């Protein structure tokens, strides 16, 4: 949980986030069919990971914090996946 000595890492991460933002917007204008949503979500996950790991210091956090950070997302995935298992298999 300790903050790094230098603030340089925050500026680098912010720069990365802006690049990814530009990337996701420009790729949204390319017709990739069903891949558009996959690409957009992948970029969003990378952005979120940057924020979680560096801004929220999970990179240097203990196991409990990491578990808590994962739990909500994991449960959300379970909820969406099992619900869609109904909607996608309706006949």
């Amino acid at each position, binding site marked *: 949980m300790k903050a790094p000595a230098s603030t340089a890492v925050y500026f680098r991460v912010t720069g990365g986030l802006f690049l990814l933002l530009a990337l*996701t917007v420009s790729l949204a204008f390319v017709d990739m069919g069903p891949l558009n949503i996959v690409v957009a979500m992948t970029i969003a996950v990378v952005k979120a990971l940057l924020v979680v790991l560096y801004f929220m210091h999970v990179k240097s956090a203990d196991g409990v914090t990491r578990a808590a*950070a994962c739990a909500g997302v994991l449960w959300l995935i379970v909820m969406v996946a099992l619900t869609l298992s109904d909607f996608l298999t309706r006949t």
Partner: protein
Amino acid sequence: MGEHRIPVAHQFDDSVQQRSAATLGMWIFLATEVLFFGGMVLAYAVYRVLNPEAFARASRVQNILLGGINTAVLLTSSCTMALAVHAAQHGQRRRSVICLLSTMFLGLAFLVIKGVEYAEKLHEHLVPGIDFRYAGADAGAAQLYFILYFLLTGFHALHLTIGIGLLAVLAVRSALGYFSAEYSNPVEVAGLYWHFVDIVWIFLYPLIYLIQAYR
């Protein structure tokens, strides 16, 4: 309040225990928040799977530029928030206050831009429940898109507003010297909350604005 006296509540053994309790508490709270937004995300996922075309068409009324600017604003605010925490942890009171105030300012800017977008929707009769009129063929499914748009962004804006309030209190306390290099826990915990609100938006932007920008 003494500059280096760390307030430890009676139930804790020491400030280390207090700090890890507060941090873990916030993380668990954020886990509940994920599921809270998750309910709406699930509704969004189901209805988008059922009505892919309608969602794509409805999303075209969104202003990708304003949404993009807002994303940039929030990303920047996360950076200033991280800097505020960093400054607080190193006992740099002045820097910490300035960073907190800039974070608040960016949060407010986000809300203003969001307000402009809401006003446009209201003007164009795109607010379900308030004289909703939609020119496209599939008004029913489009209405679902707009309800979910308002629910998701509305709850997000509510969280942001709470965050701004939180930062205001912290900025005042910072200025009054409540925090020090040894005791900056409230700022850290508020930072976690702020970053979470940012992450929610990171997902909302492509889900709401960028469904079919290429058409």
